[in-house]
């Protein structure tokens, strides 16, 4: 028998979409967790059927504010396959550079959020300051910090000039040094290791049966990366490693994302060095011939899947999108069970769902039927305090690390 049942959400700033959890607690332990999704379903798939391919491109880019290039590229790969368009090699390289810059921006964002959820706010301040470097680069290259609009059917809309490439390399050099420092912190700082180890455990078998993707899968020892398994854009011509880890927990997910940053720098350097000359796009027809295609893309959070069916008109018959968070969210309930309530914020954050800044509420139903309302912020503080009492305290750290 469980003592308390609490709903968490649906207004839930840890996630791109509002989402609700039902938790059954026995004391401080979560005995059962169930997830309800869909609060932010916007009907984009239906809307795509009523718009032209080029309109859909801009709509699809707005599925996610962080992985926007991921979605637009994934959609275009399907459309281009149906239309039989081969994009110029230079365009494939430019798509790859933007994709990796997006991954860097996303992983640095995650690192800050993870730091914040466990009370290590110095890490948040540092990593988000560094993230500005990559956002500024993206703005210089595409005109936007997010939702870059670099893609078009048949290629890309903007070139990367030699001067711009030099700027990118400069930024990457700085970020590589900073990433080296974060890896050192993650490997050596006992407070961080103790706080994240054994939390949010997901076995290799669970990953395989639930179909988890991205860093969540790779941190449980599953070698799964579309960039290698089913190469797209320029990845087939570039040298990089798939990072995996065997910790199976939040600590492992942290190491995987940090080391993936180094691989991204490596990819960008090669892509800029080897960038072929040539045009940026081939001419695409307005009407796409009847056909179907399945497109896969390794977004920062894991595999993004788009299926497009065309009917010979300028509008698609069907567009189906499976974002990585949907594949990973089913693991969260499993990771929460038999764990402490204080671990919930970091466990949810560790799959790297997209974050928004809305407030969220949890309502505690107490034995004598009085209701108490706890804000997410209070739950976060509760988690930090709970660990502080057990000796995991980041506030003692500040000042100990020299840059």
């Amino acid at each position, binding site marked *: 028998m469980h003592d308390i049942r609490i709903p968490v959400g649906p207004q839930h700033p840890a996630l791109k979409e509002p989402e609700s959890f039902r938790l059954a607690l026995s004391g401080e332990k979560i005995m059962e967790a*169930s*997830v*309800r*999704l*869909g*609060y932010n*379903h916007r*009907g984009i*798939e*239906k809307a795509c059927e009523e718009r032209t391919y080029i309109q859909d491109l801009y709509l699809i880019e707005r599925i996610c504010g962080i992985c926007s290039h991921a979605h637009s590229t994934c959609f275009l790969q399907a459309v281009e*396959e149906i239309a039989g368009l081969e994009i110029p090699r230079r365009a494939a390289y430019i798509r790859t550079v933007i994709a990796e810059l997006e991954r860097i921006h996303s992983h640095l964002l995650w690192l800050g959020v993870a730091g914040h959820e466990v009370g290590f706010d110095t890490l948040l301040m540092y990593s988000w300051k560094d993230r500005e470097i990559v956002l500024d680069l993206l703005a210089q290259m595409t005109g936007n910090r997010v939702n870059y609009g670099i893609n078009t059917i048949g290629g890309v809309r903007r070139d990367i000039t030699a001067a711009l490439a030099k700027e990118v390399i400069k930024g990457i050099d700085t970020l590589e040094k900073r990433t080296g420092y974060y890896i050192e912190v993650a490997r050596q700082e006992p407070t961080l290791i103790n706080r994240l180890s054994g939390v949010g455990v997901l076995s290799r078998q669970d990953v*395989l*049966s*639930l*179909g*988890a993707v991205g860093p969540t899968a790779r941190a449980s020892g599953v*070698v*799964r990366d*579309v960039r*290698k*398994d*089913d*190469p797209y854009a320029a990845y087939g011509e570039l040298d990089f490693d798939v990072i995996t880890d065997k910790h199976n927990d939040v600590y492992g997910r942290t190491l995987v994302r940090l080391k993936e940053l180094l691989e991204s720098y490596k990819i960008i350097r090669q892509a800029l060095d080897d960038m072929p000359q040539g045009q940026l796009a081939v001419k695409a027809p307005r009407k796409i011939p009847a056909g*179907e*295609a*399945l497109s*896969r893309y390794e977004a920062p959070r894991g*595999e993004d*899947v788009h*299926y497009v*069916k065309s009917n010979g008109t300028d509008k698609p*018959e*069907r567009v*189906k999108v*499976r974002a990585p968070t*949907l*594949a990973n*969210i*089913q693991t969260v309930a499993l990771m929460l069970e038999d764990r402490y309530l204080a671990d919930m914020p970091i466990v949810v954050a560790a799959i790297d769902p997209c974050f928004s800044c809305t407030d969220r509420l949890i309502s505690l139903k107490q034995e004598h039927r009085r209701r108490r309302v706890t804000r997410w912020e209070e739950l976060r503080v509760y988690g930090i305090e709970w660990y502080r009492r057990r000796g995991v305290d980041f506030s003692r750290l500040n000042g100990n690390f020299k840059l």
Partner: protein
Amino acid sequence: MSEEERIREGLLKRFSSLEGKIRLQRAKRLFADVPCDDFTAALEYASRELRFQMLLTITGLDEGENLGFIYHLAREDGITLNLKISVKKDGPGIRTVTPYFPGAEIYERELVDLLGARIEGLKEGRRYPLPDDWPEGQYPLRKDWNTKALKDKEANKNA
């Protein structure tokens, strides 16, 4: 013989009904139209014998009188097998694939909500992705559905 061709041969040897229904669209992409009677066996064969251990997602299609479902399966080497099945809209529906892919639950709930699919064996649970008070019989991804029809229905109810 390429790996993709070996997979096609394997499927054909086991299921004669697939003759002429397997299409190799490009490297790493196989599409197959599977007759209803063979579907569960084909899915089991693909996942257990041909090592398609990942279900990427399930796409639902409104095909007029029928509902189509494409099961996008993938292997570690990046080959995807897209198994398609069509059933009558007013027929008995399809069987759940959660015994083979536990992660399929959320994808199947999506088919139930958005296309009105009937999925036998799908366990009770919270719906996805439509709201709890969404009117019954309104399936947004059906081709004859639009927001106007929904608004009219709501207006009639209120009047």
